């Protein structure tokens, strides 16, 4: 089951700024909604998204309940060297998903 989708260009020129798009599958339950009988539905969200490029952290987001379900995060990074870009989503109830993409820099 694909729980996260990432879109990174397969190849880039050295020093080029590349667009990175990520989408994680998650309901992002806010903790403010109630069931029909009035009980609060407990909060269940992704708390942190981290992007590392060959081990160096380049982008990190702290998420709050105001992020939509299936959070989309798009940003950019500099293509410095050939290698892997790793993504990690961590959240409530032990939610943890990692995804990697390889990039070739010419």
């Amino acid at each position: 089951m694909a729980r996260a989708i990432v879109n990174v260009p397969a190849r880039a020129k050295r020093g080029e700024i590349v667009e990175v798009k990520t989408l994680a599958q998650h309901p992002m339950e806010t903790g403010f909604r109630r069931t029909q009988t009035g009980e609060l539905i407990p909060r269940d969200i992704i708390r942190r998204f981290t992007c590392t490029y060959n081990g160096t952290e380049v982008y990190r987001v702290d998420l709050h309940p105001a992020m939509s379900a299936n959070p989309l995060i798009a940003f950019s990074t500099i293509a410095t060297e050939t290698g892997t870009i790793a993504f990690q989503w961590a959240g409530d109830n032990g939610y943890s998903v990692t995804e990697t993409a390889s990039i070739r820099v010419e």
Partner: protein
Amino acid sequence: MTTRREFLALAATSLALSEAARAQLDPNLAANRKAAFQEALRRIVGDTQVRRGRVKLQLPPLIDNGNSVPLSVAVESAMTEADHVRAIHVLTEKNPLPDVASVRLGPRAGRATLSTRVRLADTQSVTAIAQMSDGSFWSDSAEVVVTLSACLEEGLI
């Protein structure tokens, strides 16, 4: 299938529940939300003055469904080791919690941008704040009209 009798019973309980919920509502809700926003702002910037400019916050002016509002932030910066954007924060005025997202980034990001989708509980103003490497803060705000609120329970208020 729900019979008419069951339906009526359910309707009666849910009406009673919403009455109970209304009775528990805080009469100072608007003031509290404003205080929460100021508190969140102070937590981010401290006593530093926030200046307008350099940040561009893009949101549609009118949105049908507050559950998924496209939002993008772009900050003008050279993004070099000496001069870059250290953090981007997005805050709302009338959501139950003012924080939306906090981004940490550095010169390796190339451009200081964030594109995402957020939830908005009400017609309100959204603020993006950028912290530069020299410690200064810059901001931009956008007004959004929301016709269908995210978290409808809050929409009762």
